[in-house]
């Protein structure tokens, strides 16, 4: 599996971490991500699972999880880093329609902007939620203050 991905993505992969034979993490630059997802989702036929957004000390991290169900159930996670100041990445709704909701969720909970999302509005939080308060960021209390 990993060889196939390596052959297709070549130097777009900045780092490979093989946790075990079923869990592979690939680090990809945010500008290459759309192409990489296109290859994995459309050409290699992986199943889109979900996106995880993480706030690190000095950057934001997004993990796009894909499952190769018939290839030993391998989960390939594409890791990409966004700058802390103005986290922004291109929306992938044009490739995967189902990704729309999780992009909205990450936008409202972590404050990561998805450029080109057709309907970037509140999903889980109420519509009049205070602007600029992102509850999943570290240091924000659970009551949203």
């Amino acid at each position, binding site marked *: 599996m990993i060889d196939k991905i390596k052959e297709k993505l070549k130097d777009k992969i900045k780092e490979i971490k093989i*946790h*075990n034979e*079923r*869990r592979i*993490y690939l680090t990809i630059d945010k500008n290459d991500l759309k192409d990489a997802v296109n290859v994995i989702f459309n050409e290699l036929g992986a*199943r*889109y*699972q*979900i996106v*995880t957004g*993480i706030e690190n000390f000095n950057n934001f991290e997004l*993990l796009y*999880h894909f*499952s190769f*169900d*018939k290839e*030993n*159930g391998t*989960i390939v*996670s594409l890791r990409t880093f966004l700058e802390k100041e103005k986290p922004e990445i291109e929306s992938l709704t044009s490739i*995967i*329609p*189902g990704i*729309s*909701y*999780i992009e909205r969720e990450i936008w409202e909970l972590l404050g990561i902007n998805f450029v080109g999302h057709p309907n970037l509005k*509140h*999903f*889980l*939080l*109420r519509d009049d939620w205070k602007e600029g308060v992102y*509850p*999943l960021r570290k240091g924000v209390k*659970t009551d949203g203050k």
Partner: protein
Amino acid sequence: MANNKKVIVPIGPYHPLLEEPEFFELYCDGEEVVDIEWIAGYNHRGIEKLSESKHYDQVTFLVERICGICSTSHPIAYCNAVEDLCGIEIPERAKYIRSIIGELERLHSHLLWVGLAGHFLGYNTVFMWAWKYREGILDMFEMITGNRNHYAMLRIGGVRRDIEDQDIPVLKKTLSEVKDKIKMLTEAVLDDPVLAARLKGIGVLKKEDIKNYGAVGPVARASGIDIDVRKDDPYAAYKIVEWKVITTESGDVFDKAVVRLLECFESIKIIEQCLDAIYRKKGEICKEIREIPEGEGIGRHEAPRGEVFHYVRSDGRTTNPVRHKIRAPSYVNIPTFKSSCIGETISDVCIILAGVDPCYCCTERLAVYDKDKKKKIYSFQDLVKKSIEKTEKIKKEIGKEVKLWKKLL
């Protein structure tokens, strides 16, 4: 109604027939649904955030509270994730017990669904049957875990309680009784001409819809995609016991019912094999884990509704996860409604949304939606007024006036 106007039929968020607060807006043109919007968040409890402030052992119980119906799915997926992070293998006996709990849950959840589906179609006999036979399974749960729901059986490294030898013959007897009943129910449901007429060919999901939305579980399997985490990425005892993945081809609501009902028999098969395997054998049920190292882990479980996904990251220094991402199967299954409901009639959408009944009492919050996107929501008083006007109009037409209605204002 003029062509440029559409009626929105709101379903929810709090509706007598919904199990949970959720909100669908059906954009209707006459009887036909032309668009559907899903509004969520009424039940958002911030569990991912809460999890970051709990000890690894506490999180097992926290995630159990995510869902009341498939309450053990999340702990299994979470424990799988932490065990993947640590790279440990759990004792064999614990594997069997995990599978028993997981499959019993699938049984009771599928029966609950079949009952509710029957209820929404106005077929209350199915509802009564399914829920009655589900009781037997809940009794088995009570016997094994001490609880009908929220079993608290899971622990990182294994399970918390053993299944006693003296209970196993009783459990097997109950199971075989339940099996006969489910068989009878299945045959009755699948042979019923009314149910077939009502369910066949509606809400069809094609293979590409499943791929585009990433749908999982019985929804995907009813459309001919044989994904099942238990087979593809085996955990617990699913690799050891014998069973098969149920798939059907047409992707309509009837096939979803078929998949769920037939899966019940596979679950019974798995439970029987697991009970035999642990009978009169002793063994460790939990591995002691002292420290969670730095790293990340992904755990999955095939819940009754599909794949549950948990991602856990540890920094190796604290006793709580740095990040814990949870994805329940409905998160990817619900958006498929955009493909399956559009073009259907309101009455069919009821069962396509499976569990969401757009009955007409909803119209107490009917909204009129017109071209320049200005919404007007009628209040209860407005609707009473409108209804009285209509009644009076009808009464006038047939030459009688009724004063009783006026007293209501």
